[in-house]
């Protein structure tokens, strides 16, 4: 899943720029007084197909009030069209508050996300080989104009996700297009001039039942159903893009009052939403105001000042230089949440063919020094990583490639290089860094330092555009010289299927390692056909197998987000499914 705040899409550079802007109020929070913080972790997806509305009340929650959410350095979604949403920011807001879909996540007492029904009455019924899924749409859900949400509208919304021309950056381009039957040949209701979606027969509506046929087994359909793209859209021209993206018709507890892209989104109560129809959402606050593109330093000042502005505010970021103050001062109101993201370095599999050299690269990487120089807080916003699957993902194994967590060890790196036959002269490494940002430059200096101590010779090429533009462009002349790249990737749902194939399958866009092993590709395909309850473990096993046998990708860190909640914001928690504040359960203390 893409990060608007470029966590997934821009390696280090842009993210670090944000951190660089961190500012400070003067408050002696004390560096030692901070509580021992527990991560809002994620321990794999659990499911509860029986959950029915209304959602259980949050203890002590009161109604009323306005919650202001500051999103520092985050431009927000480009469009509010549920079909086009594939960013952490947009999806976290809309899925929680305005746009319902087939399924959704609820947060349980331990902070774990539980997949529960939403517009469907259960989590869907697959056939034996997961090539056909049937969802029964509930009859008591309504739009903001009071009309009921019908099965036809849900089917039409799903059909829209096939239009990759109208929604080029929508998640349907990855999932609907790949898995739904006949989707590859269908251009979508807008591009194919088929406003009623008659020409696609992959979906059929029978009363309240929707049946989707798959081109290949798709056991994760229930998770895919939690994307708002798998929700209803008004029939006909009412939902025509791009205008619909300005003010989509809401069916959740809140509706769009006003929306200025990159600036502000105001949501107000949707009085037509009935709590009985929704197993996980609440409608406590009267109003939500999201302010995009905020200055990190300014937001930090507001949140730490404790003034009336900050009391009912939430910030989705904290400058790392404010971490100590915030940690000492805010207590429970500072929430650390795993963002289900991994930072990686990807040695070019076609150029660095010896596993020992790839391992040497991992040993020569000065993890903690890189984090510090890049403005991260070691152990807080970055934690050591052992594999591609982020912590808590279902099936993830707590293995270590070499028996113990790989840490900076230049001697070990030299040994491995010697084993690979490069003991006498340094092994050349070519990589890029984003020269405009001093933090990226500082980070690169640390990497160079570590690698040179570890027996490598580093040529760091400064670039003035996002490194992703270089890495993802096969014709780029700089890219052709590189033998070490990187990717930061976040999961779309707690399954290895959104991590491993995206990063390590032959030909995948973000497979910047150019890793290609037919045997592994076959295994990835095979897992999709396994019985559902075996898949998670199979992904975990494959993760371990890839890492121990090939080590094609060097996971450098799992990433965590910091959220700051105002004094009067009740239930300050994070949403384990997506790396955002848990908007569904927030309330204003009266």
């Amino acid at each position: 899943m893409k990060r608007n705040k470029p966590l997934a899409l821009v390696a280090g550079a842009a993210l670090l720029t944000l951190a660089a802007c961190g500012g400070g109020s003067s408050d002696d929070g004390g560096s030692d007084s901070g509580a021992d913080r527990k991560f809002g972790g994620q321990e794999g997806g659990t499911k509860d197909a029986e959950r029915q509305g209304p959602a259980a009340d949050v203890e002590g929650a009161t109604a009323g009030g306005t919650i202001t959410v500051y999103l520092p350095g985050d431009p927000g979604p480009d469009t509010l069209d549920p079909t086009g949403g594939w960013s952490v920011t947009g999806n976290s807001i809309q899925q929680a508050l305005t746009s319902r879909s087939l399924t959704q996540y609820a947060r349980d007492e331990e902070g774990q996300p539980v997949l529960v029904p939403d517009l469907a009455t259960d989590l869907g019924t697959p056939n034996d080989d997961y090539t056909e899924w049937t969802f029964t749409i509930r009859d008591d859900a309504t739009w903001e104009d009071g009309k009921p949400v019908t099965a036809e509208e849900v089917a039409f919304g799903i059909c829209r996700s096939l239009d990759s021309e109208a929604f080029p950056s929508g998640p349907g381009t990855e999932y609907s297009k790949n898995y739904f039957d006949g989707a590859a040949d269908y251009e979508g209701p807008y591009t194919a001039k088929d406003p009623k979606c008659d020409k696609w027969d992959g979906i059929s509506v029978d009363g309240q039942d929707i049946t989707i046929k798959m081109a290949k087994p798709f056991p994760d359909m229930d998770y895919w159903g939690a994307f708002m793209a798998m929700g209803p859209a008004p029939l006909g021209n009412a939902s025509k893009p791009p205008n619909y993206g300005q003010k989509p018709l809401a069916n959740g507890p809140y509706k769009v009052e006003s929306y200025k892209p990159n600036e502000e989104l105001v949501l107000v109560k949707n009085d037509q939403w009935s709590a009985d129809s929704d197993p996980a959402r609440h409608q406590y606050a009267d109003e939500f105001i999201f302010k995009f593109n905020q200055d990190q330093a300014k937001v930090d000042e507001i949140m730490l000042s404790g003034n009336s502005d900050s009391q009912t505010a939430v910030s989705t970021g904290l400058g790392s230089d404010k971490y100590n103050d915030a940690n000492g001062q805010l207590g429970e109101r500072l929430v650390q949440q795993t963002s289900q993201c991994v930072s990686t370095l990807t040695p070019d599999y076609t150029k660095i063919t010896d596993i020992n050299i790839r391992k040497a690269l991992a040993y020569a990487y000065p993890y903690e020094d890189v984090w510090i120089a890049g403005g991260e807080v070691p152990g807080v916003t970055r934690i050591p990583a052992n594999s591609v699957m982020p912590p808590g993902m279902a099936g993830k194994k707590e293995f270590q490639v070499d028996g113990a967590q790989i840490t900076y060890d230049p001697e070990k790196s030299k040994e491995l290089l010697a084993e690979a036959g490069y003991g006498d002269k340094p092994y050349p490494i070519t990589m890029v860094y984003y020269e405009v940002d001093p933090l990226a430059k500082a980070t690169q200096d640390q990497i160079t330092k570590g690698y040179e101590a570890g027996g490598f010779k580093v040529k760091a090429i400064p670039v003035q555009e996002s490194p992703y533009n270089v890495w993802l462009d096969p014709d780029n002349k700089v890219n052709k010289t590189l033998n070490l790249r990187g990717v930061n990737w976040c999961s779309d749902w707690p399954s290895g299927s959104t991590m491993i194939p995206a990063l390590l399958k032959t030909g995948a866009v973000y497979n910047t390692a150019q890793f290609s092993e037919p045997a592994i590709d076959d295994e990835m395909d095979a897992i999709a056909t396994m019985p559902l309850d075996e898949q998670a473990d199979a992904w975990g096993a494959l993760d371990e197998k890839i890492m121990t046998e090939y080590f094609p990708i060097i996971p450098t860190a799992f990433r965590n987000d910091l959220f700051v909640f105002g004094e009067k914001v009740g239930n300050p928690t994070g949403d384990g499914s997506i790396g955002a504040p848990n908007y569904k359960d927030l309330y204003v203390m009266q």
Partner: protein
Amino acid sequence: MSAETAGPETLGSLSTEPENQDPNSQQAKEIAGKSPIRIALGRLARDKIAVVCALVVLFFIICAVFAGPISHLFGVSLETPLASQRVDGLNNGLPKPEMGPPNGPFTWDHPMGVAPRTGEDNLAYWLYGCRVSLTIATTATIFASLVGVVVGLLSGFLGGTVDKVLTFFIDTFLTIPYLLAALTLAPIINERFSLSDNYSTIQKTSLIIVLATLGWMGTARLIRGEVLALREREFVQAARVMGMPTSRILFKELLPNLAAPIIISVSLMLPAFVAAEAGLAYLGIGVTDGISWGQTILKGTNLTFFREYPQYLWQPLLGVVALVLALNLLGDALRDALDPKTRR
């Protein structure tokens, strides 16, 4: 009867010169034996501000020229240390106590402390930043004033079509905003040379070219104006009548008389380029390898660092301010000394 308010007596007493100076007196001999530049230097030596500024500038020049030996003397270097050895990642990335202020006592290992987050030595970066700053500013000044003087001389003296064409070029270059030019050029240079091993030298050269190409017009205009006035003077006319070649008139007759405006424009161009280099580096164009005061200032402007560790920002800032101020005041003093009409 009322006395005349300004009679010959009163007028005479206003002058400091002796009424009838003896051409053989000691004073008259002293003046007669000196060139205008020597007289100006003598005035300069009596100007306290000028002397102090000259010493400050000299200090910076020594720092720049001997950056290597001085760093070696203090045992510091530009080398990047492993960050975790010098700074505390859990304390906002500020230096560890044994690295000196702000968390510990002064230490000779790092007389100016180390940078937050990276742990690089501030003294070494300051010295080499000074070198980069002065190198770029001096080279750009030399090129800009050379071009400016030549264009001004030719344009003013030859007049006619040559003057029109050259004035057109001066005006054209004046319309190009240097900040925009530098901003535009940076990605182009990067695109073209990012694979080169000499990238940082190329970057600095291109910065010098940008500064010089867009900095010569002021000098050219000034010199052209002066030449326009001078070429009608008797000694130039006389030289022409005697049939001197144009080049000789330009360089032997006119140029010496232009020493004052040239020195002045150079002395004011230098600080402008020092400030421009730092400003561009702050914006992330020009020097991007971190060894520049502007880049250090950029890193130091973080509010938390400024609160906990203000020295980190003050050090490069003081460098830029002191150097620019000293150069400017020195330039002013030079102008005053060289121009007898503006004696204070």
